[in-house]
């Protein structure tokens, strides 16, 4: 099962919705698409919707961390939402929740960033 990514821009927020399995193989295409979307639009914050991610490993974390660093440089915040139990464990174990904010769903994430959905 491969990975599909869809992007949506709301004001200065980039919403990234992933579906499928995020491993090293999938991470390279995702990285370049994600970077392109951030640079093409005037983005400050990123919302990462992981609802349909069925598998992720440390290569997936690497891509998320890379974008987190970019968002930080833009003075923004990264919010992760709709996370599944196995991906939650991976994030928790890796200390990701110390740096990215967790919200229940996209709507909550948007309002946390001060954007009306």
């Amino acid at each position, binding site marked *: 099962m491969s990975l599909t990514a869809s992007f949506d821009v709301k004001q200065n927020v980039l919403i990234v919705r992933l579906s499928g399995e995020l491993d090293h193989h999938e991470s390279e295409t995702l990285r370049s698409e994600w970077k392109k979307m951030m640079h093409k639009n005037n983005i400050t914050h990123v919302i990462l919707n992981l609802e349909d991610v069925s598998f992720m490993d440390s290569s997936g974390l*690497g891509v998320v961390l890379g974008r987190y660093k970019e968002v930080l440089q833009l003075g923004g915040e990264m919010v992760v939402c709709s996370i599944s139990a196995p991906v939650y464990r991976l994030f928790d174990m890796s200390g990701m929740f110390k740096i990215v904010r967790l919200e229940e769903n996209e709507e909550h994430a948007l309002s946390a960033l001060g954007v009306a959905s």
Partner: protein
Amino acid sequence: MKNEMYVEFSSISENEAFARVTIGSFVAQLDPTMDELTEIKTVVSEAVTNAIIHGYNNEPGHLVSITCTLDDDAVELTIKDEGIGISNVDEARQPLYTSKPELERSGMGFTIIENFMDNLEIISLPDNGTTVYMKKQLSKKTVSK
């Protein structure tokens, strides 16, 4: 009863998914929990990715092998490459350590393996390949005691 499988495949990233799905299918006969199955698929993905990216520097045309043994409710995995090896295994096992920071690696591979498995042994010498041995006792027997 002991049951063993062996698989060998090219060092290309497409095979990361193949490897974890194959091992997942083999281990499924022990009736693991969903969590255990995810853990095993994750560690296979981590070790195979390491072999491809680090062992073989992302060069295709090499081989990665996996031996998986099921013995009662224990799963043993040996994932092997004939690549460049690791000069300092203790350093490589540290959380957040990566030899390739330019590739946006999280450096969490071995830490995740340590968390998800009961045993992890890394046998590696520079230019002599890397063998990652992992073992996990599935919960079934301990739950029913």
